């Protein structure tokens, strides 16, 4: 899964293959799919607050598979409720994350997109710029939802001031740790970077066989918080042109600290240099790791993989350099309406139903992800679950988004940040050289497109 990373190793490898196969399919499709634009367009959302009459109509909806472990009851309830409200039927289709991107691309090219679909937040700008999605800003404003949406998700779906994706759900990364290990080593969850190092030293001394704080080379989401925490930027936009910020003094300071946990303090292992997040989770569930940066959706899977860990896992937000929190990437999904939707009022009614109130809350409870509205997020925080509350705090107070441009998708595809980390962790390059090279590579992509 490209947006969030997934906990199991098997899935990660299947994902690579899925992408490969789907990719080849697209290359073959190029031949046949070109030339046809999107189909007939109808009027936009003319009545965002009303209840449209959809008797005899049918909406096609794509939802990603795997987010909700058992989505059938949810879908059945949604169908019944939507039919009751509007009279329209739903055709819900589940799509694998691995093949989703290429499937969307082929569908946009061939004018066969669904009416409503779940779109990974990092894909929204790409599909919007390709002309696939419609602008939802007016509808959101008129429905009075504008101020309730989680800002990080709005930011991720906004291009040139227009919102193309309605926040649906999201996850965020914080630190997951072993409570038993911390207790025996006599340390508390750290709140500053210095405390993180001190806690690490104690754990390393008490548990020399464990990996104190693995620094995986193939995961840019691990380093991002430290760049942002130190006051740096991954990239900034000025007058429509993006430029990289990873070689700024602040970003270098954050990258130095994060990679230093491995190269100076020995909290990681050379093995982690080639790990992605799936490998990281594997090592954690095998009991080899004391703490790690991991997603809010992962604790359940970690305990499933190793039931012995039950009651021994805790979480804390990623500390800031001198207290507070370091911002962490807020990844998740939008619901988007496609240009090909015939009845956009009806599509909007569905989007509204799924992203607010009862149905949004249900989805969040069943999937383990956080809802996209502040009011619902507050409810989650108030439940005070020790494996949920720290993530919820991170998400509502220190969530951040990656550069909102489809060009950043290319940078992720080229693994620019991961390559930078790999070269520092394997001691092939200094932080200064590696960040300079990464910035040059990013700027090259930003300038060429």
């Amino acid at each position, binding site marked *: 899964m490209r947006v969030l990373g997934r906990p199991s190793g098997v899935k990660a*490898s299947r994902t*690579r*293959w899925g*992408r*490969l196969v789907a*990719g080849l399919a*697209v*290359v*073959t499709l*190029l*031949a046949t*799919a*070109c*030339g*046809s*634009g999107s189909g007939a367009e109808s009027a936009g959302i003319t009545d965002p607050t009303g209840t449209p009459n959809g008797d005899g109509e049918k909406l096609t909806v794509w939802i990603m598979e795997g987010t909700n472990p058992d989505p059938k009851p949810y879908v059945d309830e949604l169908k019944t409720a939507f039919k009751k409200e509007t009279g329209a039927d739903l055709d819900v289709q589940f799509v694998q994350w691995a093949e989703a991107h290429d499937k969307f*691309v082929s569908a*946009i*090219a061939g004018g066969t997109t669904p009416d409503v679909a779940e779109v990974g937040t990092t894909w929204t700008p*790409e599909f919007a*710029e*390709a*002309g*696939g999605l419609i602008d939802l800003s007016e509808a959101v404003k008129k429905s009075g939802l504008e101020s309730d949406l989680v800002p990080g998700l709005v930011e991720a779906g906004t291009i040139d001031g227009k919102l193309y994706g309605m926040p649906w759900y999201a996850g965020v990364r914080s630190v997951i740790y072993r409570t038993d290990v911390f207790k025996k080593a006599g340390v508390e969850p750290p709140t500053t970077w210095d405390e993180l190092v001190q806690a690490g030293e104690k754990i390393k001394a008490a548990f020399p066989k464990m990996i104190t704080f693995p620094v995986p*080379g*193939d995961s840019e989401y691990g380093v991002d918080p430290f760049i942002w925490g130190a006051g740096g930027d991954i990239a900034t936009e000025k007058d429509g042109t993006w430029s990289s910020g990873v070689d700024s003094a602040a970003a270098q300071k954050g990258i130095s600290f994060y990679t230093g946990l491995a190269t100076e303090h020995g909290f990681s*292992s*050379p*093995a982690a*240099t*080639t*790990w992605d997040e799936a490998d990281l989770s594997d090592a954690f569930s095998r009991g080899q790791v004391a703490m790690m940066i991991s997603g809010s959706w992962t604790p359940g899977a970690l305990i499933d993989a190793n039931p012995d860990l039950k009651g021994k896992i805790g979480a804390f937000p990623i500390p800031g350099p001198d207290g507070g929190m370091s911002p962490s990437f807020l990844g998740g999904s939008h619901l988007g309406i496609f240009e090909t939707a015939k009845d956009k009022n009806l599509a909007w009614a569905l989007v509204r139903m799924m992203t607010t109130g009862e149905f949004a809350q249900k989805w969040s409870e069943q999937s383990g992800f956080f809802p996209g509205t502040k009011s619902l997020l507050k409810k989650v925080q108030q439940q005070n679950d020790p494996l949920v509350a720290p993530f919820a705090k991170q998400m509502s107070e220190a969530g951040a988004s990656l550069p909102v441009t*489809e060009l950043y*998708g*290319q940078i992720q*595809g*080229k*693994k620019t940040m*991961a*390559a930078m980390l*790999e*070269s520092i*962790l*394997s001691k*092939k390059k200094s932080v200064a050289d590696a960040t300079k090279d990464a910035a040059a590579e990013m700027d090259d*992509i930003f300038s060429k*497109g």
Partner: protein
Amino acid sequence: MTQTIPTTEPAAGVRPPAAGRRLRHTPRWLPWALVLPALAVLGLLLIYPLGWVGVLSFQDFGLRELVTGERSWLGLDNFRDVFHDPLLRTALPNTVVFAVVNVALTVAAGTAVALLIAQLGQVARAIAVGAIMVAWAMPAVTVTYVWVFLFDARDGFFVELAGHLGLVDPDQTNWFTERLAFYAIATVNVVQHGFPFVAVTVLAGLSTVPRDTLEAAVLDGAGAWRRFWHVTFPLLRPVFAVVTILSTIWDFKVFTQIYLMPGGNGTNRDVLNLGTWSYITAISQNRYGLGAAIAVLLTLMLLAITAVYLRTLFRQEEL
């Protein structure tokens, strides 16, 4: 076939002249009509996509072009970009050196195994051939994961073994981050997966070497080494030509075995080869035009090197 005219002429050679006659009476279009289905399948599955890759390599073709159907011709810009990209400086030698080493090792290992199997009795031979067939039949993905697993940092079999022997510190070792070690592991994988084809093909060839020629060589006092180089090898040149060409093609465009190894997906730039670079550019970055240019470059190199390779290894008239 019914057109065959019985010949009354005395047969001059071994080959009956009827073969030549038959052609004259067959309509010109018939052979083409007979191969048409095969040609159509090949054209659809191979030539059409190949042509498209060629066309794409001259375009700025990304997601936008795919969606809108616009065309934006760049001339040779994609190729210029490829030649100026610093990644070419690692990807090119990685591809070429890896291929040369792997073809040599695969053909050598396959030939050695074939010679060994040829010495065995019937039962042992059946078991040995069956065993290498299994190795051959395994999907590349599976085999790659097995090798990765064996060489894995921290708890892979070979790392632990080397640790017990005092050669390395398993906690401080990750072979996948080093270019040479990475490609050594890939070589083990590719040779292990590739030698059975060579062995089976050469074994089939060995049965055509006349026994009396070999016996004559023995009587003349030739050892095993000389018999191989002076009798077997010259007789089997066409067989070696085929296995060498095919191995070269396979090892040049190796992708799966590299991409699936830790760091092979572009994270470790030191181990990128033309195949993985092309895939990452075209599919992960959606820069289909630039990715196609890399693929075209790879194909042209492959053609050139195969040609040169064959000319030096085997003289033209003997093929």
